């Protein structure tokens, strides 16, 4: 989540500025690479994320290259006290192909936005790919702690994903706060519809879920548009010219009963019959 701090500028003249610069911070995951071998990375990612494919949803990620084994990095390779250095495998370390790494991460729905701890050559690759250089930033805590941090986060998230695996998506709600005039139409697809102002004659409100109008409803109201017979229609002044729930409809050629006409009321479906009830 980005947090913005205002710069203390007062927005005086209208249209004076078309944009503002504010300081902001973004929490990211750091992906610390120990190897640049694409096959190894692919296997490693598949193993870590294999059974939680939806864990990342284009989450921003910084690629931390500070612990990468590099052939050219003679001093680091020769220094046995370098933090986090793993034992070298037989054979020369793979040179980094950042484009391939980025593509692999994107396949797993990670969105790389920056690199850290990159060599000048790697930085060139990063810039060519449009990634920012986060070297100057104080990323997280100490270098040594990073791998552990990443692992912990992965595990926590994995548990949460397992818990909510089964139930379906909660129904969203489309909220309209301007009056709907004759000839205008709104369709709340896969959702409930809330209208907080007048729905005029000749306007159409349609929802796959329920319709709630906190004002007079005078137009056509079509709820449960894809067959949801539990959908209802609510209004503070029920004057609709056509009512339909899950395909069962009634025009006001057959006038609404006096108990509900122009009163706060709800309409629901009981079997094949529309039922009108004042609140």
């Amino acid at each position, binding site marked *: 989540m980005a947090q913005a701090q205002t710069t203390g500028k007062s927005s005086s003249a209208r249209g004076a500025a078309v944009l503002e610069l504010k300081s902001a911070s973004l929490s990211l995951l750091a992906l610390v690479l120990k190897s640049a071998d694409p096959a190894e990375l692919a296997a490693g990612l598949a193993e870590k994320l294999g059974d939680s494919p939806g864990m990342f949803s284009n989450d921003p990620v910084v690629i931390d290259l500070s612990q990468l084994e590099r052939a050219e990095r003679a001093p680091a390779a020769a220094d046995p006290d370098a933090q986090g250095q793993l034992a070298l495998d037989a054979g020369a370390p793979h040179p980094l192909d950042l484009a391939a790494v980025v593509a692999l991460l994107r396949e797993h729905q990670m969105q790389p936005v920056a690199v850290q701890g990159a060599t000048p050559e790697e930085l060139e690759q990063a810039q060519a790919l449009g990634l920012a250089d986060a070297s100057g930033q104080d990323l997280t805590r100490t270098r040594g702690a990073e791998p552990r941090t990443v692992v912990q986060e992965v595990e926590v998230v994995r548990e949460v994903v397992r818990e909510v695996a089964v139930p379906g998506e909660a129904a969203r709600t489309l909220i309209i706060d*301007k009056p709907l*005039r*004759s000839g205008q139409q709104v369709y709340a697809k896969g959702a409930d519809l809330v209208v907080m102002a007048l729905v005029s004659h*000749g306007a159409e409100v349609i929802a796959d879920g329920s319709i709630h109008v906190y004002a007079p409803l005078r137009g056509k109201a079509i709820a449960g548009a894809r067959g949801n017979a539990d959908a209802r229609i609510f209004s503070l002044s029920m004057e609709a010219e056509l009512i339909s729930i899950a395909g069962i409809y009634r025009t006001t050629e057959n006038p609404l009963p006096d108990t509900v006409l122009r009163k706060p009321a709800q309409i629901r479906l009981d079997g094949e019959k529309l039922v009108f009830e004042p609140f």
Partner: protein
Amino acid sequence: MPTKIVVVTSGKGGVGKTTTSASFATGLAMRGHKTCVIDFDVGLRNLDLIMGVERRVVYDFINVINEEAKLSQALIKDKQIDNLYILAASQTRDKDALKEEGVERVLEELKAMDFAYIVCDSPAGIETGALMAMHFADEALIVTNPEVSSVRDSDRILGMLNSKTKRAIEGKEPIKEHLLITRYNPNRVEGGHMLSLEDIHEILRTPLIGVIPESEIVLQASNQGTPAIAMNGSDVSEAYKDVVRRFEGEDRPMRFIEAVKPSLFKRLFGGK
């Protein structure tokens, strides 16, 4: 002060848009504001007739849009009122000649000439002419007769003002809406034949800027080629003057909305 573009629109035809555009623009000019009124009814132009300038139209709005003439050549200066200019529509072309970029360019040129108000007389309907007339508006007068089909059409137009105009598309502050009831006859309202102001408000829920009474003066005025507001002393003229004052922020009570019972003398010997 920046130029304000005001569209006079209605949806329904024949309710009094051109009559209102002519009187409203004249009223603003009479109060000292440099005002231009533009006829957007390409092919069926009549603003110039109502303003009495039909014999002086050489170049028109479409000529300027197509760069066949300069704006200064097409603008007609009113002979009676200072500060008032008319841009007539073409009689021979049709609405396809109205192009958004062309309209925008002409409006920008008018703004550069320091006009305080640009009044756009919309044609009836919801097609190109009406859409172009409202597209760049800052405020709108929605002309409505106290009659069901006019009210329904005005509702449609209100919907388009808040969805199909530049301000709506760019998410800017919405166009300021003013409802103008024309051809109001309080006696017929009392008799239940015409919608009352309360009925209309219940349906449209838009702030009322004025009520223009039904009057034979309007016909006389258009025959003379004079805007109704210039027919001094008449109820229509006074009502339009009230509208202009309210538009500029003055608080005026509504006049001409009470049914007048004819005196015994009148009832015995006819007359209204």
